[in-house]
């Protein structure tokens, strides 16, 4: 057993038992972050904070929400919105944060793609990040069911039908997922459970894995430069902070993060108080009705690109294309055959690949929102084919890339 002495202070008492000084060093003051970064490196902490906002607003919604097909709609639209003091605030915060979190996730992802922060030791950061993306998608979908409006119901119908895997007609699986022939009480209660317990727990675990995955390869920098972190840390600790290429995570890096977060929060609360309507689909203010399909069923904006990859094809091919779109980003570190870790602007053909991919995903998103008619169908089909084509050419264009 370790030797304990009479403590001289509360701090010392805790330090003897929990090694809080050592812990503080590992987690904060001696966790080293490169200096050569820009505001895009703050998106991780912006995401962590947005998740915290979702958690807190969700806790308050949970106290009045009723997961019952007869009561759910009114518990949200009447009880929470009109009776609960500041209930509207929690709902609008929750809805806007759920939407904005995907905007930040996409910025975070494309930052990683642009600077090559997914390879040469950083593969697990990328993969754990993609798992988080999947978990957030499942969390968003399950949450979208809960108000039990028309969009909730029909999105639930359409998405669970995907699991019949097209012509395989595996209706048994669909009925098993729903616990009924159609989305009904069993469906609502189990998605409620997933939304408030199982998926949030998975997200918390994945966030821990994601942060841990950063420890060994370290955070990438603007030039993709590799250097000896121990050496640079010694330089910093010896007082030569100017020459060192690293800074402390806290309070140095965190103070920059907090500045970006503040700007983000001003934008966020502007949306919450004045522009919340974009996150609240008007169709979902009609209660769920299994005998009336809304004129247009479309997902929230952040799923539109993959929805548009599903739409222009026949059922089975559409499903395969959709499945492809869901998993292909996981394989990015292995499909990029180049050794270069550098911004896309210095990587020749990859620079073109990056911008075409970004623009293509924006086009897919726009087309996904428009009705599937005439020229929009054609543009959607072309954009979907471009998306698939880009992944096919990626190994070839990165193979011939010049070594930097």
């Amino acid at each position, binding site marked *: 057993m370790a030797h304990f002495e009479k403590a001289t202070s509360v701090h010392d008492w805790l330090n003897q038992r929990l090694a809080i000084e050592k812990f503080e060093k590992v987690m904060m003051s001696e966790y080293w972050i490169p200096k050569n970064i820009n505001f895009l490196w703050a998106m991780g902490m912006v995401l962590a904070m947005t998740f915290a906002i979702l958690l807190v607003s969700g806790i308050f919604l949970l106290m009045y929400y009723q997961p019952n097909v007869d009561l759910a709609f009114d518990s949200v639209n009447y009880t929470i919105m009109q009776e609960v003091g500041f209930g509207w605030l929690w709902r609008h915060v929750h809805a806007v944060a759920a939407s904005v979190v995907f905007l930040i996730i996409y910025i975070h992802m494309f930052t990683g793609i642009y600077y090559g922060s997914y390879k040469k030791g950083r593969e697990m950061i990328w993969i754990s990040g993609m798992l988080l993306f999947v978990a957030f998608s499942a969390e968003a979908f399950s949450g979208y069911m809960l108000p039990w409006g028309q969009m909730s119901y*029909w999105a639930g*119908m*359409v998405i669970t*039908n*995907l699991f019949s895997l*097209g*012509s395989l*007609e595996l209706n048994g699986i669909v*009925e*098993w*997922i*729903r*616990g*009924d*022939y*159609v989305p*009904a009480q*069993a469906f609502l209660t*189990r998605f409620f459970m997933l939304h408030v317990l199982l998926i949030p727990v998975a997200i918390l675990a994945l966030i821990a894995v994601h942060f841990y995955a950063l420890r060994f390869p370290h955070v990438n920098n603007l030039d993709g430069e590799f250097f000896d972190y121990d050496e640079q840390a010694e330089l910093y600790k010896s007082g030569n902070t100017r020459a060192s290429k690293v800074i402390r995570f806290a309070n140095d890096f965190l103070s920059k993060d907090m500045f970006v977060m503040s700007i983000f929060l001003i934008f966020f609360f502007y949306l919450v108080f004045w522009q919340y309507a974009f996150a609240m689909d008007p169709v979902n203010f009609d209660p769920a009705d*299994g*005998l*009336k*399909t*809304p*004129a*247009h*069923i479309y997902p929230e904006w952040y799923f539109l690109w993959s929805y548009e990859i599903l*739409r222009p*094809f*026949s*059922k*089975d091919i*559409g499903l395969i294309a959709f499945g492809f779109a869901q998993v292909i980003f996981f394989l990015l570190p292995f499909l990029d055959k180049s050794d270069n870790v550098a911004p896309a602007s210095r990587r020749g053909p990859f620079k073109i690949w990056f911008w075409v991919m970004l623009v293509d995903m924006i086009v897919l998103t726009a087309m996904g929102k428009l009705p*599937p*008619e005439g020229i929009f*169908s054609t543009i959607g089909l072309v954009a979907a084919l471009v998306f698939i084509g880009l992944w096919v050419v990626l190994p070839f264009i990165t193979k011939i890339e010049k070594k930097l």
Partner: protein
Amino acid sequence: MTKGRRGFMGKAFGAVAGVGAVASLYAMKRSWDPLPSVKAAGFTMVDLTAAEPNVLVVEKWRGKPVFILKKTPEMVAAQNEEQTARDIVVGNDHFLVCIGLCTHLGCIPAYRPDKHDFKCACHGGEFDASGIDTLLPPPSPMEIPPFKVDGTTLVLGEAGPEYEKMKSSGITV
């Protein structure tokens, strides 16, 4: 000796844990199955004499909409064999009876009486008045639910001889 005993203990532990894991997974799977009360959802009876020609009737069966359309004599006359094979004939009247869900992703197509067809708003699929898909993305005709004709009453949920015949000839799955 010790090694053998440790190896045995390891295998024994693995076996017990494996049985426990499989049993737990089975219990979890069963807990997600549709409840008996859900499965025992009753039969739906429809009085066919009340139907008007070229007016779509939507009944609810196991939470799903069932389309019932009495065809006009002109519509029947214009049909080909494939379309007529899907009709339920009661007396001299021809009826379309099908589950009113698009076979693409389960939206409810809308009936257009002037065109005698169905249009799905979700992804633009179309079906003719016999429920046969005429425009992508739906891959197959709308399904015909198990039915039995009892005089002029249609019983949904019970498989009668007409339904069995359609099923064996591959008209519906």
